[in-house]
């Protein structure tokens, strides 16, 4: 038998050898082989070391107090883990309100921001309207300022209103056509200054040169609702008369006191 064959036989019978299941002669042969083979000797040593003492003997050698100490330790470890799990679970229960609260807060925020946005849009639109109105007023005031800067009668009428305008008229005996036009421009364009009856009367009470020039255009106006300042102004502008020609304020004043409505 070669060395390799001896090694294979040795290793095959190792379990039986260390288990004491071989006849003495076979044991002696195998031990002889191990004495001359380092590898098999190491295997035998390792095997005998592991197999000795047998597990049953090792069990007997376990100290009793060691065995007795296991159950209380296992019980304590399980209790500790259970209470840790419970704490963890309680912890989650403690924060259980957080999810619905966050959801509600998100909803409120969403709806609230929607309403706020709508209100903001509405306010912006309102602001735009107001800004437009303010701009119109400012434009009108600037225009009025410009017109009245060089015309004391118109300035008085524009700044102090109808009463002041009437007083201004009362202080004069006459006004020029140009001054009259400036006065009309200083009034709001849609202000009704002559009622329907006064319009008829106006045509009759005007100076003959003015009455002749106005009769035709006055007849064209729809005077049922009276005549507005802008309409009268347009009539005045259409007159082919000298702007410096003067008109008696007494007649104008009588007309104004009886008919002008602002």
């Amino acid at each position, binding site marked *: 038998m070669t060395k390799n064959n001896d090694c294979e036989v040795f290793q095959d019978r190792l379990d039986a050898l260390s288990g004491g299941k071989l006849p003495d002669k076979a044991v002696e042969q195998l031990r002889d082989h191990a004495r001359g083979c380092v590898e098999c000797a190491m*295997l035998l040593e390792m095997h005998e*070391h592991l197999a000795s003492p047998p597990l049953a003997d*090792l069990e007997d050698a376990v100290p009793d107090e060691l065995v007795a100490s296991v159950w209380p330790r296992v019980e304590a470890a399980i209790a500790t883990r259970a209470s840790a799990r419970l704490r963890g679970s309680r912890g989650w229960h403690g924060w259980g309100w957080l999810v619905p609260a966050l959801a509600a807060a998100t909803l409120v925020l969403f709806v609230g921001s929607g309403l706020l946005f709508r209100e903001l849009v509405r306010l912006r639109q309102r602001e735009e309207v107001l800004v437009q109105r303010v701009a119109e007023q400012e434009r009108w005031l600037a225009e009025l300022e410009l017109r009245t800067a060089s015309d004391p009668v118109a300035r008085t009428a524009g700044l102090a209103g109808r009463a002041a305008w009437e007083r201004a008229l009362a202080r004069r005996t006459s006004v020029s056509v140009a001054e009259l036009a400036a006065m009309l421009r200083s009034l709001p364009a849609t202000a009704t200054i002559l009622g329907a009856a006064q319009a008829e009367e106006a045509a009759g009470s005007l100076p003959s040169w003015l009455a002749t020039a106005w009769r035709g255009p006055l007849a064209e106006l729809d005077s049922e609702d009276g005549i507005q300042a802008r309409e009268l102004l347009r009539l005045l502008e259409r007159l082919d008369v000298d702007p410096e020609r003067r008109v008696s304020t007494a007649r104008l004043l009588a007309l104004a006191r009886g008919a002008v409505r602002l």
Partner: protein
Amino acid sequence: MEERELTALAAAFQQGDAEAFRRLVEGMTRTLIATAYRYTGDWEWARDLTQETWVKVHDRIRRYDPTRSFRAWLFTVHRNGCLSHLRRAWVRHETVPGEDGIMALGLADQRDPLADMERRDLHRRLLLALGALSESQRQVFVRVDLEGEDQQAVARALGIKHATVRATLHFARKRLAGLLREVEE
């Protein structure tokens, strides 16, 4: 404790019987400590590993299939714990903990301190060398040579042929013997 009794207790514990669990612990703890000692060479470590095994069994009992052997399932849990313990030592390149415990065992040869020292050294080197085996070699080796399980039972448990177990064991032993010899030289 008989296999049938073990399995019945395990099934009862699975149904919520805490007393059955206590009886399992009391019935199998000695065997588990002895087995763990084979891995660690230290009683305290063996006790701690056994305690860990029981806590794992408590936590995982629902995974146990009552139609199969509880002893086999228990030893699988225990073995994995013991091997994890050794792996931690291999990773840290430490000596196996508790080698001094062999002296306190009462198994040490008080009459021959030199032989006893050699024995402890062999145990330490052997356990460290286990880290160099493949997983399958280690599984077969620890079950047959450390835990003293029958080769055919190991083949059945691992779902491989008996011849494969023999061959794997053969290579594992040779590898370990070679590693131990290298250290000696």
